[in-house]
C-alpha cells in the first residue's frame, strides 16, 4: 500500500534539531510519514536513528523545528498524547518488561485504552497471529527466547491499536533465519493498514519491502528517495549497502 497523493502526512518532522546537552544530534531533519506507508530510515551507528524515533514519540524534545501529528504541532504534547493518537514504538532490543508475565506485557501495551472488549479482541487477534505467545502467557517475558520476545514486543505494540508503528532495528539480535520471517511479519502488519516507520541497519532487506527511505549521516538526511531508487543508488550501494550484504 502506498501513499495517496494529496493526503496529509500522519507524522512529520519540520526542520527538527535535537541536542543532548551541548551535543547536536539531529540537524534540520525533514521527514514525512503518510498513512499506510512502509518507510525506512537507514544510517550507520550513532547517526541519530533512535533519537529520531524518540523525538517522534516525544521522549526527547527537539530544540527547534516542529513535530507534526495529523497536521497538529505536538512539540509540547507528552508521549501519552501521541500514543493515544496511534503512534507506537517497538523499542531497540525489544526491551520487554522482563519480570512481568507475557500477559502483563501485552496488557501494558494497551495501557491508555479502556475499551475492555476491544482489548480482548485485540488479544485474540495477537494470539492468532502468534500462537506461540498464547502458550506462554504466564511465563516471565525475560525467560522467552529471542524470537519469542520479538513476537511479544510486536504484540505489545499492536495492543495500542497503532496507526503508525515505529520500529527500532527489529532484526537486531535475531538469528539469520529469523530475520527473514521477521520482515515477512512486518509486511503482514503493514498489510492490515498500519503505517510502519522502520529504523534498520539491514538496508537491503529493509528497502526490499519499503516504499520509501531516508539515509541519515551524523544527524543529517543525506538521501531521501523511493526504495527502488535508493537500492539503485550507486553512492548508497558503495558506501552502505556494500557492507550490509
Amino acid at each position, binding site marked *: 500500500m502506498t501513499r495517496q497523493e494529496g493526503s496529509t502526512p500522519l507524522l512529520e518532522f519540520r526542520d527538527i534539531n535535537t541536542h543532548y546537552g551541548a551535543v547536536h544530534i539531529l540537524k534540520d531533519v525533514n521527514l514525512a510519514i503518510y498513512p499506510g506507508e512502509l518507510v525506512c530510515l537507514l544510517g550507520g551507528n550513532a547517526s541519530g536513528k533512535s533519537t529520531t524515533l524518540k523525538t517522534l*514519540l516525544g*521522549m526527547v524534545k527537539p530544540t527547534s523545528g516542529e513535530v507534526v501529528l495529523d497536521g497538529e504541532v505536538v512539540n509540547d504534547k*507528552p*508521549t*501519552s498524547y*501521541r*500514543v*493515544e493518537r496511534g503512534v507506537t*514504538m517497538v*523499542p531497540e532490543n525489544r*526491551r520487554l*518488561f*522482563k*519480570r*512481568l*508475565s507475557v500477559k*502483563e506485557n501485552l*496488557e*501494558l*501495551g494497551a*495501557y*491508555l485504552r479502556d475499551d475492555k472488549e476491544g482489548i480482548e479482541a485485540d488479544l485474540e487477534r495477537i494470539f*492468532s*497471529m*502468534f*500462537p*506461540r505467545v498464547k502458550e506462554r502467557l504466564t511465563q*516471565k517475558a*525475560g*525467560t522467552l*527466547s*529471542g*524470537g*519469542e520476545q*520479538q*513476537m511479544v514486543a510486536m504484540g*505489545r505494540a499492536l495492543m*495500542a491499536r497503532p496507526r503508525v508503528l515505529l520500529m527500532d532495528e527489529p532484526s537486531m539480535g535475531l*538469528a*539469520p*533465519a*529469523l530475520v*527473514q*520471517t*521477521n520482515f*515477512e*511479519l512486518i509486511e*503482514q502488519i503493514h498489510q492490515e493498514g498500519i503505517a510502519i516507520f522502520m529504523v534498520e541497519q539491514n538496508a537491503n532487506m529493509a528497502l526490499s519491502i519499503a516504499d520509501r527511505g531516508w539515509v541519515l549521516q551524523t544527524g543529517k538526511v543525506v538521501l531521501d528517495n523511493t526504495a527502488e531508487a535508493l537500492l539503485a543508488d550507486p553512492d548508497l550501494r558503495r558506501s552502505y549497502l556494500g557492507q550490509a550484504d
Partner: protein
Amino acid sequence: MSAVTASTGMPTAVSKGAFDVDWRQIARTGGLLALGLVFIALTGMPVGLDERTVIEPWLSLGLLSLTFLPFVLGYTVGHEKVLEGVAAKAKGARDVVAGAAVGALGGLGLSVLVVLVDNFDLRDPLVNWSPQLVEMLSFDQSVGFGFVAWIAISGALGAAGGALHVLPHQVRRAVVAAILAVLLTAIFESFLTDVIDQLEFLYASRGGLTNVWAVVVFVVAMAVSLSGGGEKLGERRAAYQAASGPAKNRQTALFIAAFSLAMIIIPLVTGKITQELMANVGIFMLLALGLNIVVGLAGILDLGYVAFFAVGGYTTAVLTSPNRGPDWPSWVPTLDGPGGWLIALAVTIVMAIFAGLVIGAPVIRMRGDYLAIVTLGFGEIIRLLFLSDWLGGYFNGAQGITNIPSADFGIFEVKGTDPRSVFYLVMVLAAISIYISWRLEHSRLGRAWMAVREDESVAEAMGINTVNVKLMAFVVGAALASFAGAVFSAKVGSIFPTSFLILVSIVILVIVIVGGMGNIVGVMVGALGLVGVLGGPKQPGLLQEFSEYKLLIYGALLIWMMLNRPEGLVPNVRRSRELHQDEFLQDAWLRGEVDRDESTTEAEASANLADGLGTNGGAS
C-alpha cells in the same frame, strides 16, 4: 544415544574414605568460623548475655551466641548443591570429619583470643577486650583449660553439624525442628508465660528451661516432626498456591477470617508486655505497608520515608495537644474532645499527601542512586525543620510536643497506657492499608508502577506518564505512613524530633526487604519477625536482651538475605522464580547437555524458533 548420556546421565554416588575431604574448603570455612567467633566475642554479646539462661544451668544466651555457629558451619561445609546430571558424593564419615575439622579450626580462633586477651590489653580500641571475656571464655577455670575446651567444644559441635548429613532426610528435619523448638521455648520464655501463666512450670525460678523439660520439648517436637506435622503445612501452602477461581477465594476468605479472629483474641489473653509489643509491631507494619508500595511496587528506593511518619505524628500532635507551640493562630483548633482524633487523622492524611507532593515533585525526576540519596536528605531535612529554632514557635524544637491526648472515640478510648486498645486501632488501620495496597496492586495504576519499576523509558513509550505515576506512589506511601504517625502520637503522648531518626527509615526498609518486596503478607511477617522479635529502633522486642545488638543482627540478616534469599522471607512466587533464574537456567542447560542428541545443531534450534515466529507468516 551417545556416551555423554551414559557417563553423566545417571548420577551415581561416589563413595570415598572418611579422610578424603576437601581440605581447602575446610580451611576456608574454618577460617571464616574463627573470624566469626572472634567477632561475636568482641561485640560483647557473649559476656553481655551470659546472665540470661536458656537451659538451666549450663546454657546461657551468651554461650549460645558462640556455640550455634560451629554447628551451623559444620553442617554447611559438607553441604553441596547437587546439580542435575552431576554425580552426588555419598554421605558418610567424611562429613563428620569435615565438620569436626571446621569446628576445631574455628574453636582455635577463640582459644587464641582467650590467650591474647589474657596477656595484652587492647581495651582502648576494643571495649569488650576485658577480663570478663577471659573469665567467660575459660569457664571460670584457667586460661589453658579454656584454650583446650574451645577447640574441643567447637570441634564436637562441628562434628555434630556434619553428622546431620548422615541422617536420613526426615530424621534430620526432625532433629533440627526439635533443636529449634527447645531454643524457641527457652528464648521466648517471657512471652509464653505472659500469654499462658500456667506454662511457668517449664522454667527454672532464675529463668531458663529446666533440663527435664528441655528433653521433653525436644522429644515432643521430634515426634511431631516425624509424624509429618511440618510437611502438611507445606502441602497446604502449595495446594493453596495451586488453587484458583472460587476455591481459592473461599480459602483466602477463610484464612482472613481466621487471622482476624486470632488478632481479636490474642490481645485478650496476653499480658501488657505482649500487647505493647504487638501495638509496636502494628505501627511498623503500617509503615512497612506504605513503603512497600513505594519500594516494592514502584521500585523507588526511598531512604527518607520517616519524613512522612514525622509529618503524620506532628500534625496529629499539633491538632490535639494543648502543649503545641505558641505561635499557632487561634483558628487552628485543639481537638482534644471525643472524636477529635478522627478529625485530626483526616487533616493528617491531607497534610501527608501534601508533603508527598512537595517532597516527591523534585525527587521523582531523578533515577536510581541519585533518587535514593536525595530522599535520604529530605528525610533529615524534615526532622531538622521540626527541631529548628526557626519553627520553634510551632513545634517546640527539641522539647517536642507533650500532653498529646489519647484517641477518644466516645465509646472507646485508645490510650498508650492501654496497649490493647492501641493494638485494635492499629489493626483496623492495617486492614484498611492492606485493602488499599491490594486493590492498588491489581489496578491499572499498580500495573503502571510495575512497568516503571521494570523499565522506566519503555513504560514512558507505552504512554505511561511516569512522573505522575511515581508521584502517586509517593503520595499513597505518605498517606499510609501518616496513619502510623497519627496512632503513634496518641499512643506515646509526646513526640520529639528524635522520635523520627533516619534509623526508622532504615528499619522500615529492612522490614520490606526481609519480608519480601512487593508482597503484602511478606511485609506483615517481616514486621512481626523484626520488630516483634528483635525490636524497633527504640521499641524493645521479644528478645529484649538483644536490644544492644539489634542493629548488628539487622545488618547481618539483611546481608544474609541479600546473598541467599533475595526474594524475602515470604517470596512472591513470580519474583523468586526471576531471582533464581540463573540457577534454573543452569539446571536447564545441564539437562539439555545431558539429553542433547548429537544431531541437534544450532541451526536446527534456530529453525525451530523461526517456525514459531512464522506460524502465520507462511515461512518455510
